[in-house]
């Protein structure tokens, strides 16, 4: 059955608006600690998660809220968890990186790469006692260099486990450009372990849906794991308040604090040769410059309006849908915020 673009768009928009509420609450100081959003990866999450059914499992990384929302976890519970309420999804114990839903077989971890073993384990249980069910692992491109993830891919390969390994490739791991830290080609890496690899444009929900559909069917019918690499962007950089993005947005405000000690240190008497120092300076400048020219900042990469564009033939239906989702999300926010312990 081909995907219904309307319902995929609805899921993506709901996730986006929901995460915008999270961002607002974080900026207002009502959510503490770090905050990694999935804004920019909605097409990947929706394209995969919309196809999951009862008994399927998800292993999530530090950006798990979109997947849980789309999987059907009550968004009020997610929000109240992030607000630290005792009646939140995890009783206020977990926070945004450690979201769990037992009934949806969904577990998150802030340990990069931990999604691999978790998905493999869910898949062992599926293979053993619930054939036809699958496990999905969502992780980033940086996680591909984590041993336990690679080991899990091998395990899934040799045990023919029903796993869909989804690499959300934004090209970055915090301030590190993955191209500089990743040897070879990731698809070839997967193939080298005996896992078929598929690469799609992660901004294109239809492409993701189609690739995931084939992979999930493969897994359900006992033919083993697939590696799905989907390119995407993260508009907020690594997390909310990310320094490189702040520099890009307001260089005059952010740069002096960075430039001054940098220059002082560069000019210190003892140290490396001038050539070495300049090579160091180039590395630092490259990170800043590649953020300034970052595709993250280009709205053309936003999967939500891209999907929307293909629905504009029916503007009335579109408006009605968007009004409804906006209302739903603001109701969720109002409800979640009704009694927040201060």
């Amino acid at each position, binding site marked *: 059955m081909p995907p219904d673009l309307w319902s995929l768009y609805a899921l993506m928009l709901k996730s986006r608006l929901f995460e915008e509420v999270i961002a607002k609450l*974080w*900026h*207002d*100081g009502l959510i*503490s*600690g*770090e*905050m990694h959003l999935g804004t920019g990866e909605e097409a990947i999450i929706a394209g995969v998660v919309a196809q999951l059914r009862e008994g399927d499992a998800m292993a999530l990384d530090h950006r798990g809220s979109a997947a849980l929302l789309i999987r059907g976890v009550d968004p009020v519970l997610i929000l109240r*968890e992030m607000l*630290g*309420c*005792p009646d939140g999804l*995890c009783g*206020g*114990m*977990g*926070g945004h*990186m*450690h979201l769990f839903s037992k009934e949806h077989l969904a577990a998150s*971890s*802030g*340990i990069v790469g931990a999604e691999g073993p978790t998905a493999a384990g869910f898949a062992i249980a599926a293979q053993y006692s619930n054939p036809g069910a699958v496990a999905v692992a969502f992780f980033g491109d*940086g*996680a591909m*260099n*984590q*041993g*336990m993830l690679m080991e899990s891919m091998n395990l899934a390969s040799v045990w023919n486990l029903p796993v869909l390994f989804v690499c959300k490739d934004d090209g970055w*791991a*915090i*301030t*590190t450009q993955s191209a*500089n*830290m*990743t040897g070879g080609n990731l698809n070839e890496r997967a193939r080298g372990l005996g896992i078929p690899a598929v690469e799609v444009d992660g901004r294109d929900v239809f492409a993701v849906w189609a690739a995931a559909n084939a992979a999930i069917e493969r897994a359900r019918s006992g033919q083993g794991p697939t590696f799905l690499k989907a390119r995407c962007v993260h508009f907020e950089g690594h*997390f*909310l*308040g*990310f*320094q*490189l993005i*702040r520099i890009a947005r307001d260089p005059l405000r952010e740069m002096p604090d*960075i430039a001054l*000690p*940098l220059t*002082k*240190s*560069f000019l*210190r008497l*003892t*140290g*490396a040769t001038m050539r*070495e*120092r300049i*090579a*160091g*300076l180039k*590395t*630092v400048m490259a*990170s800043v410059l590649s953020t300034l020219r970052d595709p993250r900042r280009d709205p053309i990469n936003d999967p939500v309006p891209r999907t929307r564009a293909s629905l504009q033939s029916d503007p009335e239906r579109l408006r009605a849908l968007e009004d409804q989702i906006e209302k739903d999300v603001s109701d969720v926010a109002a409800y979640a915020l009704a009694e927040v312990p201060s």
Partner: protein
Amino acid sequence: MSTMFFTQAIDDALAQAMADDPRIILFGEDVPLLRRNLLVRFGPRRVRGTPISESAFLGAGVAAAMAGLRPVVEMYMVDFLGVCMDALLNHAAKVEAFSGGKWTAPVMVRVPCGGGYGDGGQHEQSLWGWLAHIPGLSIVVPSTPADAGGLLLAALQHDGPVIFLEHKLLSETWLEFLGSGGRRTVQYDVPANGAKGAVPRRWEPLPIGKAMVRRTGSDVTIVSAGVGVHRALQAAEAAEREGISAAVLDLRTISPLDRTTFCEMVAHTGRLLVVDEDYEGFGLSGELGAVALEAGVSFKYARVCTQTTIPYAREREDQALPNVKRICSAIAQLAGEER
């Protein structure tokens, strides 16, 4: 004397050490940007970024140390040592023993630890007791900028593996990076004297294994490390107003432990209160009790530690970590009746 922030002091001491000792190289995830000031001075051969492959680069750091370098390996958080513990547990800690004392691995692991900024139980652990459990590792937990710089220098000169724990609540850069992210809407209970303080003009190594008396007192001896030291000092001041005189000992290094100073301090008051942000069971707090008992000191004992997985919710997090209120009531109880 000038003043510095906590992480600024560590980086400053590290720069001094790197200028003096070309064997020191530095690597870890995002290090080129996090330690950009060192990168532009010492160049990309000595200051390197790594993939997210902790088992590989920590294990490599151990062997590079065996081969004559003095690597500083940076880990994002002590919690993530779980991923690559083998490099410490079975390798770094064993080289000296296995080689019959002929070979060591002078690797330094610089790693943020600790909670108090709402990041949840996988990102806020202390784990120094867990690490100190392993013979062959030295565990350093500074509580002030001056100690941080001096101990860092000592760690780099030490002939074995040292885990240098940098408490995030004291670190201006980690707290901004992970806690506030440029927000003015959040506040954290940062101990002012730990976050910023006087530092020497030129760094000198401080002895590893030497505790520091932060406050003298005659009724109760409070022993702690890291942020706990500042919480203890605050509680001791409050106790003073209640007529209880509490001493505060800052361990500074968990392992090796300064048994002499510690036992003297406990013997002096006859009451030991351990304030430990690490987990209560099977850890530092119990060890301290055992050490004092073995030394024949007779004393009353209490502890304020972290007993559970650290909750994400801020108020519950505050209850779970040793806070001033819990320390005050423990002091009152210990010093209680028969004083």
